[in-house]
């Protein structure tokens, strides 16, 4: 029964989504509020329906219903229940349902808001969100159905169909193939859902942008409504990326966290446009500029989100040619092409209505620096896009496929990221409208001097790597500038309000959540940059075959091989687990357990590191090889990853910072525009 219930609910949800598109269009055309209301209600039906479908799918996954092909492909009897549930998004069909389920939830949340002031947007927001939803549901129903079952014909062939073909019997495999061992990790609980949450929530600002273009109500209203959506989307997408990096670091056993493969880049590209969008909408809000640009950014973000959803789940590993391997590839490219062309056509139609209200005058004004920041983010996007399509282009032009690997991305993006960091130091100090080198210099010289002194210290300490010196200087500069700005503002408040320092600091953040939350985001980014510089530029590694009791030395650490054991684990693994002790200067620090897991169902091994983490570095020990015949010896590989933990710490600060920036501010709900935000004065101008 469960497959029929799940599939039936999918079909109903699809029907409801299509109906809501049609009713909203008709209601808008004939100015019939009742039709629009019926569209809204129909859209509200989709989430409960998809929840029924999702629960059915989870029921099938958890109960080992291997007659369902999706269940057969992504689960096996030996998997723990939590992994069977997460297998929901462990394959393409299920993750499309998951995407649609999130989309329906967000669309419902949006349609439930108060629309009194924005009634003209409502039908179009419904049209955009429901069309997107219907597209995904259509794919699920017509191409990638997770509820399809196996049937055996009289001749013994097994076919895969939703409903029983005549003359066949149900076919139930004994056990499933099981989730790819790489995915059998608690990271599976957080990484894909966060990424998808980020993807899906970017649809909402896009829907409002389209409503703005279609209705011609081209004021900043859509940006005010969607500001918080955008922040949440950005938070989820950023965290999805960071958790993915951490997961790779913990299970892939190569001492790295990011490999510039097409799937990673696909998730990174909407982040780049989203980040640019987040900054440039501020210019529209405060100066009435860059309106066309913002539209273009949100259109790009939306289509990159759809592209990313497709790519992250299509099994593409290393070859862009693998696009074609997925049956749904043409549908995705068609949808992306159609929405992009339609959106850009709408943008051109409203081009004149979106002209800037003011002209950019000074190259050092905050809006000019923000524009530069946008251009740099877009440049990184172009680099990424070029890297992904270059093999196709080269083959088309020369007949020879030429690819570019991580060195390309590192080389091409490093100067751009350096530029972005330099802007993070300058832009918060510059004023709207007009700034001069003199005012900027006055605000920056103290932190800049300190940053130079720190860099000089590193140089005297023996650091000669130019990239590292520039990188650490920029990290120090941005951090110090930001902290100095916060400190100055707190001091000013402390004097004016006669408050103790900490209270003044707390109230400063509480009263200006956007600004200071934003500053904190910058600091968290610098923490992450510190970790990335550390591991990218100063990673060292060594390997050795040891007898029990022997040690391996790396960067002042001593790793002693104590013992090893091989035993079966209840979840269908055979575990080979070594025990090693970590010493530094003769002092015992920790015991680590690097191990090799062999999964019987997948016939695949996983090499799981033992890690000893401090703020200064990470010692990452891999058990490379062990032969039971020569039980004495085992081979280890050890990585020393300086500063890498700042990457993960930075992610935690990042979450806190976004919570501060996105938390509703009581005053703001009453006043649509806060006077303070329209002020052309720069931060800390009170002193």
């Amino acid at each position, binding site marked *: 029964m469960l497959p029929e219930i799940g599939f039936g609910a999918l079909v109903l949800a699809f029907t409801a989504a299509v109906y809501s598109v049609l009713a909203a269009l008709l209601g808008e055309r004939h100015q019939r509020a009742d039709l629009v209301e019926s569209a809204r209600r129909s859209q509200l039906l989709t989430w409960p329906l998809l929840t029924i479908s999702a629960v059915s799918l989870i029921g099938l996954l958890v109960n080992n219903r291997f007659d369902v092909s999706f269940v057969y492909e992504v689960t096996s009897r030996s998997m723990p229940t939590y992994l069977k549930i997460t297998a929901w998004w462990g394959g393409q069909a299920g993750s499309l349902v998951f995407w649609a389920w999130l989309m329906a939830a967000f669309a419902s949340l949006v349609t439930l808001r108060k629309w009194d002031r924005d009634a003209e947007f409502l039908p179009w927001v419904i049209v955009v969100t429901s069309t997107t939803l219907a597209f995904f549901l259509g794919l699920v129903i017509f191409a990638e159905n997770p509820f399809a079952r196996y049937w055996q014909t009289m001749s013994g062939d097994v076919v895969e169909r939703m409903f029983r073909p005549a003359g066949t019997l149900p076919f139930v495999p004994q056990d499933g193939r099981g989730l790819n061992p790489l995915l059998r990790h608690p990271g599976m609980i957080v990484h894909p859902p966060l990424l998808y949450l980020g993807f899906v929530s970017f649809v909402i600002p896009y829907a409002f942008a389209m409503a703005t273009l279609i209705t011609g109500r081209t004021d900043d209203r859509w940006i005010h409504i969607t500001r918080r959506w955008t922040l949440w989307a950005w938070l989820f997408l950023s965290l999805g990326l960071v958790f993915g990096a951490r997961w790779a670091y913990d299970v892939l056993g190569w001492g790295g966290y990011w490999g510039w493969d097409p799937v990673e880049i696909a998730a990174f590209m909407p982040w780049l446009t989203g980040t640019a969008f987040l900054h440039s909408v501020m210019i529209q809000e405060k100066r009435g500029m860059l309106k066309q640009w913002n539209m273009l950014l949100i259109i790009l973000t939306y289509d990159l989100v759809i592209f990313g959803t497709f790519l992250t789940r299509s099994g593409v590993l*290393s070859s862009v040619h693998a696009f*074609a*391997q997925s049956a749904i590839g043409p549908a995705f490219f068609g949808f992306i092409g159609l929405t992009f062309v339609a959106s850009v056509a709408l943008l051109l139609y409203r081009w004149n209505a979106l002209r800037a209200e003011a002209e950019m005058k000074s*190259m050092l004004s905050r809006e000019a620096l923000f524009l530069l920041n946008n251009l740099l983010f877009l440049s990184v996007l172009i680099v990424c896009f070029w890297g992904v399509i270059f093999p196709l282009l080269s083959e088309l032009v020369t007949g020879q496929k030429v690819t570019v690997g991580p060195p390309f991305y590192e080389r*091409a993006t490093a100067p751009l990221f350096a530029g972005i960091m330099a802007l993070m130091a300058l832009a918060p100090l510059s004023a709207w409208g007009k700034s001069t080198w003199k005012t900027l210099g006055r605000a920056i010289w103290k932190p800049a001097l300190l940053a130079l002194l720190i860099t000089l210290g590193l140089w005297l300490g023996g650091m000669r790597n130019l990239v590292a010196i520039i990188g650490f200087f920029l990290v120090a500069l941005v951090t110090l500038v930001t902290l100095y700005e916060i400190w100055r503002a707190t001091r000013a408040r402390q004097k004016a309000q006669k408050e103790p320092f900490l209270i003044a600091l707390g109230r400063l953040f509480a009263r200006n959540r956007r600004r200071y939350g934003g500053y904190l985001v910058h600091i968290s980014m610098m923490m992450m940059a510190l970790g990335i510089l550390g591991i990218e530029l100063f990673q060292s590694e060594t390997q050795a075959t040891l007898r029990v009791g022997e040690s391996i030395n790396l960067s002042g650490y001593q790793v002693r091989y104590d013992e090893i054991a091989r035993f079966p684990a209840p979840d269908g693994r055979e575990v080979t687990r070594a025990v090693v002790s970590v010493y530094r200067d003769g002092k015992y620090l920790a015991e680590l357990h690097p191990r090799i897991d062999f999964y019987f169902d997948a016939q695949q091994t996983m090499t799981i590191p033992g890690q000893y983490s401090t703020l200064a570095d990470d010692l990452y020990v891999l058990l490379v090889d062990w032969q039971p015949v020569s039980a004495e010896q085992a081979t280890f590989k050890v990585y020393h990853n300086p500063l890498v933990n700042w990457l993960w710490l930075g992610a935690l600060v990042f979450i806190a910072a976004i919570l501060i920036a996105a938390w509703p501010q009581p005053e703001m709900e009453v006043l649509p525009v806060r006077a303070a935000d329209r002020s052309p004065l720069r931060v800390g101008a009170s002193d």
Partner: protein
Amino acid sequence: MPRTKFLIGGLLILAAVAYLIASSTVAAAQYFLTVDEVKAKGSEVIGKNLRVSGAVIGDTIQYDPQTLKLTFEVAHVPGDNKEVEAQGGLAAVLHAAVTDPTRSRLKVVYIGPKPDLLKNEAQAIMTGHLGSDGVFYADELLLKCPTRYEEAVPQQAQGN
């Protein structure tokens, strides 16, 4: 006046990005070749930065944990995806490549931990260079085992 200033600034950025992309592409470009193409080009590609795709032959995998030296052979598989599809999908193509003794083969040497996915009939995508001894020295191995993901239906009637 400010307009021209911004225009010039924008053009400068554009030029800088174009230069960055072009120079990095030249510096990091890797020819993506099949085993047959490597054999055909021979000495022409020795020492060049290459990316080669092939099917791993399980029997040839040798690993010395003392030196971390991994050697194995790969058999030619077509590079064009349409061709792969026409021959019944990646899994079938890999299987055919490994079982066909007439296919051209390439010996690969890699120093490092043995990758978890290295096994018979896996697709290996190797980055590295061809030595004058005709051996491919890989710096990076990417492996995938398509059988696990792309098989349409279970092969044998176990249930029922």
